[in-house]
C-alpha cells in the first residue's frame, strides 16, 4: 500500500500544477461573464491544452490518462479557484453512456464538443409521476417512419435552459411491464416543440426546470440501445450520476473548522469546546472515509473494474453531512446565523446558502432512501421490496392521478 506518488505520478502532478498555475483564469478575465460563459472559457482553455476530460481516449477529445492521473488532476485543479463547471451531466453521465452504447461515428461527432465545453448536455429522466420510481415515466414516443414523435413532460432538469443536447428516456410501449417498454435517446434541445420552464427552489434559485415535449421529432439514429432496452442504458447513466454528484455541495470540514476557530463560546474559542470538537471530528472522519473510499474505487478502476453500487455511499453520506454542518455552523453563529446577505454574513453567507441547498442534495440523483435500497439490494444482496406492479402491463398499473 502506497499513498505517495510514484516518480511518474510525481512528475505528472508537477506538470499539471505548472500548467494550472500559468493558465487558471484571472479575476479580470472573468469579469462581466455569466456562469456559463466562465465555465466555457475555462473548459475550452483546458481542452486546447489537452487537459479536458483527461481519462477519455484522445480521439474523443481526452488525453488517454490513467485513473490515478485523473485523481491527481482533480486534486490539483481543486486546489485552485476555477470557474464552476456546468458540464457535470454531459461529461460525467451522458459521455459514459455514449461511450458504452453509441456508434463509433456518434462518439467521434458528439464527444469532442462535450470535452471542449462547446456543448452543454442535460438529463431528461425524471417526471412528475416518476421520481424514485423512475421507470414509471410516461412521456410517450411513437414511431413515425425514421423518426419518433415525443409528447410529455420532464422535471428536475438541471441546466435545461442553457443546454444544447439532452439524454432522454421515454416510453415506447405502454402495453408491456414498465421496465420493458422504455427506450433511450439523445435529443437536440433546440428541436421544435421543446419548452423549458424554470422551477424556483426553496433557496430562491432556479437550477432546475420543467421541460415540455409537444410533438417533438427525434431521428431514430439518435437512439442508444435497442427499442425497449432503455432501462438497461439508463442504469449506465445512473451509476455514473452517483459518481458525478458525489459528496459535494460546497461545504467542507475545513470551513466549519475555521469558523469554530474564529468564534467564541463562554469567552474561549469555540474550537476549544469539547462538544464542538466531537462534532467536527465526526465530520472529518466522514470526509476522510469518503476520500479514501474514493481512492480505493480509483484503484479498482485502474485495475479495469467498473465502480460498483457501493459508490452510492458518497452521495448519501455527503448530502447529510453538508446539511448537518451548515446547520451546526449557523448554530455557532447564534442569532447572527440567520443573516444570509452575503455582504453582511460571515463567510459570505456560504453556511446559509448550503443550509437552503442541502435538502435538494439529499433528493437529487436518488433520495437517501433509494440509496439505502440500492446498497441493501445490490451490495448486500437483500431481497427487493414487494412490487405490486411487477409483470403488469404499464397501462394497467394503478396511479394516483387516474
Amino acid at each position: 500500500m502506497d499513498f505517495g506518488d510514484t516518480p511518474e505520478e510525481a512528475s505528472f502532478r508537477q506538470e499539471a500544477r505548472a500548467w494550472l498555475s500559468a493558465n487558471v483564469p484571472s479575476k479580470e478575465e472573468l469579469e462581466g461573464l455569466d456562469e456559463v460563459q466562465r465555465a466555457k472559457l475555462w473548459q475550452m482553455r483546458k481542452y486546447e491544452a489537452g487537459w479536458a476530460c483527461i481519462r477519455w481516449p484522445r480521439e474523443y477529445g481526452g488525453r488517454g490518462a490513467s485513473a490515478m492521473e485523473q485523481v491527481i488532476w482533480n486534486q490539483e485543479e481543486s486546489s485552485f479557484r476555477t470557474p464552476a463547471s456546468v458540464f457535470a451531466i454531459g461529461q460525467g453521465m451522458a459521455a459514459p453512456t455514449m461511450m458504452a452504447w453509441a456508434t463509433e461515428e456518434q462518439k467521434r461527432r458528439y464527444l469532442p464538443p462535450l470535452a471542449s465545453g462547446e456543448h452543454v448536455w442535460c438529463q431528461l429522466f425524471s417526471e412528475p409521476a416518476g421520481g424514485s420510481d423512475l421507470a414509471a415515466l410516461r412521456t410517450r414516443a411513437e414511431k413515425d417512419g425514421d423518426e419518433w414523435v415525443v409528447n410529455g413532460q420532464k422535471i428536475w432538469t438541471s441546466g435545461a435552459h442553457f443546454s444544447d443536447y439532452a439524454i432522454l428516456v421515454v416510453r415506447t410501449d405502454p402495453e408491456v411491464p414498465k421496465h420493458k417498454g422504455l427506450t433511450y435517446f439523445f435529443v437536440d434541445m433546440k428541436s421544435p416543440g421543446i419548452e423549458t420552464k424554470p422551477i424556483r427552489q426553496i433557496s430562491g434559485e432556479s437550477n432546475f426546470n420543467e421541460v415540455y415535449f409537444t410533438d417533438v421529432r427525434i431521428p431514430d439514429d439518435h437512439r442508444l440501445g435497442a427499442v425497449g432496452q432503455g432501462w438497461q442504458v439508463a442504469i449506465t447513466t445512473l451509476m455514473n450520476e452517483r459518481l458525478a454528484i458525489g459528496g459535494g455541495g460546497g461545504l467542507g470540514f475545513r470551513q466549519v473548522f475555521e469558523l469554530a476557530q474564529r468564534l467564541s463560546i463562554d469567552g474561549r474559542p469555540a474550537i476549544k469546546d469539547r462538544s464542538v470538537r466531537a462534532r467536527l471530528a465526526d465530520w472529518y472522519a466522514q470526509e476522510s472515509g469518503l476520500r479514501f473510499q474514493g481512492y480505493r474505487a480509483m484503484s479498482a478502476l485502474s485495475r479495469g473494474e467498473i465502480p460498483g453500487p457501493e459508490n452510492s455511499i458518497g452521495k448519501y453520506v455527503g448530502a447529510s453531512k453538508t446539511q448537518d454542518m451548515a446547520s451546526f455552523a449557523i448554530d455557532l453563529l447564534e442569532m447572527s446565523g440567520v443573516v444570509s446577505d452575503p455582504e453582511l454574513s460571515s463567510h459570505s453567507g456560504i453556511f446559509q446558502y448550503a443550509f437552503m441547498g442541502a435538502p435538494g442534495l439529499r433528493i437529487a440523483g436518488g433520495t437517501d432512501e433509494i440509496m439505502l435500497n440500492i446498497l441493501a439490494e445490490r451490495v448486500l444482496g437483500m431481497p427487493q421490496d414487494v412490487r405490486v406492479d411487477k409483470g403488469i402491463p404499464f397501462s394497467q398499473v394503478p396511479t394516483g392521478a387516474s
Partner: protein
Amino acid sequence: MNFEFSDEQNLLREQAAGFLADKCPPGAARAVLEGDASFDAQLFKGIADMGWTAATIPEKHGGLGLSYLELCVIAEELGRVVAPVPFSSSVYLATEALLLAGTDAQRRAWLPKLAAGAAIGTFALTESAGQPSPDRLATSCDNGSLTGTKLPVADGDIADFAVVVAKCDSGDGASLCLAPLDADGVTRTAVATLDPTRSHARIDFDHAAAEPLGAEGEGWELTRRILDRAAVLFAWEQVGGANAALEQAKEYAMGRYAFGRPIAGFQAIKHKLANMFVKNTLARSNCYYGAWALSTDASELPLAAATARVSAIQAYYFASKENIQTHGGMGFTWEFDCQFHYRRAKLLSVNIGSERTWQDRLISAVEAGQAT
C-alpha cells in the same frame, strides 16, 4: 498510488481466515465466556505457531520483521471472530512499548519470548474512573520499587509482565516501567467485566520490583505514541468485528420470515443494514489510511490513528447493537451469539481511550496542521 493490500497480504488474509474458521469457531468465545479459563490457550498457541505474535518483531529478536500492513490484516481477522486471546495486549501494546522505548537488554529479554508466544505482556494505565492524565496517577516507581493499583488491566491476570505508567515529578509527569508480574509484592485479582471473553484484572503493586522503560519524565509522551500505534490496530479489529456483525444480521434477516416473507425484504431492516454497511465502509477506508501511516511511520500518524479509531468505534458499536435489534428477542438470549459483538464492541470503544478522547485528539491533530 495504490490503495489496496498486496497479493501477498491478501493471501495472508485468506490463510488467517481459514485458520481462524477452524480454530476459533463461535464456540471458542463462548467457552471462555462460560468457563473458568481466562483465554483460549490452545488458540493462542496456534496463533503463535502461525508467527502472528512475531510479525513486527525484528528478526534479530526472534521475529519475522514483517510490515505493519500484515499485522493490520491479522488484526481484522482476529476482530472478525472475536478471538478470546491476549493478542492485542501482548502485540499491539507490550511489544510496541518495548520496540519504542526498550533498551537492548530489555528487548533481548522479552521480545524473543513475545515473538514465540512464550510470554504475554500487557499495558497498565488506568487506575480509576474517568479519563487518565498524569496528575491523576497515584502509582509510583522509585528506585526500582513500584507501588500502586492498576484497575482494570487487560490480561492482567495472565500476563508475564506489564508496562506500567507511573507518576513522575519531572518532565511530562509520567514514566514508564517494566514490571514482571510474578515478582514479590504483586497481587492480581481477576475482575468481572462487560466482555469476559477478554480477561481483566486488578493489579496491586506493593514495593514490587520494576525497571524503568524509556527516559524518566517522558512516560506520558511515550504513552501517547504507543496508543496512537495501537489505535490503528484496534481499529482494524473493530472493523473486522463490525463487518462480522453485519454479516450475522444479514444472515438472520434472510432466513427469518414474518408476514409471509423474509424480514430482509422490509425497508426498515434493509436501511438499518445499509447504514451499517456505510459506517463500516467509511471506517475501513480510514483504517487503510491508518495502516499506511503506521507502516510508513508517517508524521500524520496521530491524525490517521484518531480518524481510524473514531470511525471504527462508531461503526462497531452501531453494528453490534443493531445486530441484536435485527435478531429481535432471540438476539437478547444467552444462547445466541449476538452478545459477543455487543460486549467486544463496548470493550474496544473504551480500552485505549473513549470515542470522546479520540475525537479530541483528532481535532488536536488538525489544529497541529496535520490535515492536508
